[in-house]
């Protein structure tokens, strides 16, 4: 229960938890010798009832998060990141570094790993946990060398017949001088093209933030899922608000988050993702192991299915998966004006 709180909509939960903590303290040791001696708390707090109350509050709050709140949960500082999941999912992770051209971008982690008994290549955005790591990872905003490293390792996986698992968690690709000069757009574009024809199964999960091209750059996959409280969209709500609402503030950010249809359920309805993976009660930031277990179950079942499909069919189906995306009307060519 030592969650690091910062979300205002979790306040009611925090209040219950404080009562539970106080109750546990009281039940445990002798009362403090001085100060506010137990005034009128009664003989014992009903801990079981409080815990039940907490569960119900979590259920209630987390079943009706607004899109803006989902974005806040997706960015929760305690939310598990790629390296946390790798640790939870994999025995014997063998990290691989570098793009062989310019450098090694810590904002994208790549390496061989075993999930259950399935040998695979894992690729994921890493935002960073400590301040130092966050700065090195540019808060999960990868540079071109990150995307090129990802592709190079994915091509290794293809060569050795290993399936690929990618974990998406980025606010967007890094906007900077070096990134532009070294071809950020080209690096992402090449990944989109090459992933579409990699001759090995690819599954992706948006675990936190799925920000635009920087997210898609490692997610042209046979199956794509989202964790329940992640978001995936063409632009961040703040970016969208700044442009279309002419200013980014709490109100316009929330409006943009709603308009962009960025939640897991929205993306499922739009046909952009295939499945929503449930998170533990109250979000992955309360229970990394629980979130990892759900993630693992989905990945393993998908990989087992995909491995049965002949590779030509697999690549064809992947093409079709993206080919049909979009929404437009097609008028009768006879009546259409040229």
């Amino acid at each position, binding site marked *: 229960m030592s969650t690091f709180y910062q979300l205002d909509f979790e306040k009611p939960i925090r209040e219950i938890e404080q009562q539970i903590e106080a109750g546990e303290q009281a039940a445990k040791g002798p009362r403090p010798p001085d100060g506010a001696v137990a005034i009128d708390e009664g003989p014992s707090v009903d801990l079981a009832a409080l815990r039940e109350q907490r569960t119900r509050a979590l259920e209630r709050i987390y079943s009706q998060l607004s899109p803006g709140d989902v974005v806040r949960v997706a960015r929760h500082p305690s939310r598990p990141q790629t390296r946390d999941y790798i640790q939870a999912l994999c025995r014997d992770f063998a990290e691989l570094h570098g793009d062989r051209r310019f450098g090694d971008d810590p904002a994208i982690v790549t390496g061989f790993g075993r999930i259950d008994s399935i040998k695979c290549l894992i690729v994921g955005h890493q935002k960073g946990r400590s301040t130092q790591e966050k700065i090195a990872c540019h808060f999960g*905003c990868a540079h071109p060398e990150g995307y090129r490293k990802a592709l190079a390792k994915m091509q290794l996986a293809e060569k050795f017949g290993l399936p690929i698992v990618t974990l998406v968690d980025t606010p967007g690709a890094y906007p900077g001088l070096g990134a532009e000069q070294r071809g950020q*757009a080209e690096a992402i574009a090449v990944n989109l093209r090459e992933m579409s024809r990699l001759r090995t199964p690819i599954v992706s999960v948006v675990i936190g933030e799925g920000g635009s091209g920087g997210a898609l750059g490692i997610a042209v996959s046979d199956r794509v899922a989202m964790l329940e409280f992640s978001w995936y969209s063409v632009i961040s709500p703040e970016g969208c608000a700044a442009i279309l609402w002419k200013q980014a503030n709490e109100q316009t950010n929330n409006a943009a988050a709603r308009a962009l249809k960025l939640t897991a359920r929205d993306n499922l309805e739009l046909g952009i993702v295939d499945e929503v993976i449930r998170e533990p009660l109250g979000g992955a930031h309360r229970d990394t192991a629980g979130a990892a277990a759900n993630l693992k179950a989905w990945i393993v079942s998908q990989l087992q299915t995909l491995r049965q499909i002949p590779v030509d069919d697999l690549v064809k189906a992947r093409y079709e998966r993206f080919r049909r995306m979009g929404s437009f009307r097609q008028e009768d060519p006879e009546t259409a004006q040229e």
Partner: protein
Amino acid sequence: MTQAASTRSWTELRPARKSAIPEGLWLRCPSCGQMIYRKQMEANLHVCPECSHHFRIGAVERVKQLADTGSFQPMFSNLRPTDPLRFKDLKAYAERLTAEQIRTGQNDAVLAGTCFIKGRPAMLTCLDLTFMMGSMGSVVGETITRSIESATEQGLPLVIVSCSGGARMQESGLSLMQMAKTSAALARLDDAGGLFISVLTDPTTGGVTASFAMLGDVIFAEPKALIGFAGPRVIQQTIRQELPEGFQRSEFLLQSGLVDRVVARQDLRSELARVIDYAGK
């Protein structure tokens, strides 16, 4: 840390200097400041006769400049945008679309078809900056994809002229998916040995740059065009320093090894024909 978003750039790029070509007989060149005779500028492929500033042009004008006279046969022009998200910001997307369609007389921000370029048959697809900043939603993505597939099937060289603010926010995730769709189609063209020449014009940014536009076998850029992933303002806000002179312009991309040639508009037809002769089937 700002929200690093690729597609943020499109409205920060001033709306196409459409006012730069007013209805008057004379106009002031935004680059050299000279008063120039409008008809003379237009006859010069919309390039300033004084300083060679390349004015932005729409898709119809672009096709007119590149295709042999009368050879352009439009395709896929029966596709119409919808409003799948019922998107509404300060204005509803549905209303925006209708207004843009009335204003421009076009269905969306793209024009595609077959043509001859100096006698060589080709598939020519042009984005149109005048319609919602050339942004890529489902119709643009679908038209580009069909052009690629059609070029692949018919064994035609493919020329795409880009100018765009990026993916269209009002179709959100569906716009994002057009990046994957168009790029995947280009993988098939590549597998078939087809030629794709990408022409980048002012401005080409965001999700268009980060998908098909940077995937040309050969990439041309018009002089001084703004070409990048993130928009200059987003970069400036992120790094908090002034951007160097000429940053993200065609000549900078040439120096950085990201484009093959910077080609002036007057040479574009012959340069396209030359590459088609070398690499086309």
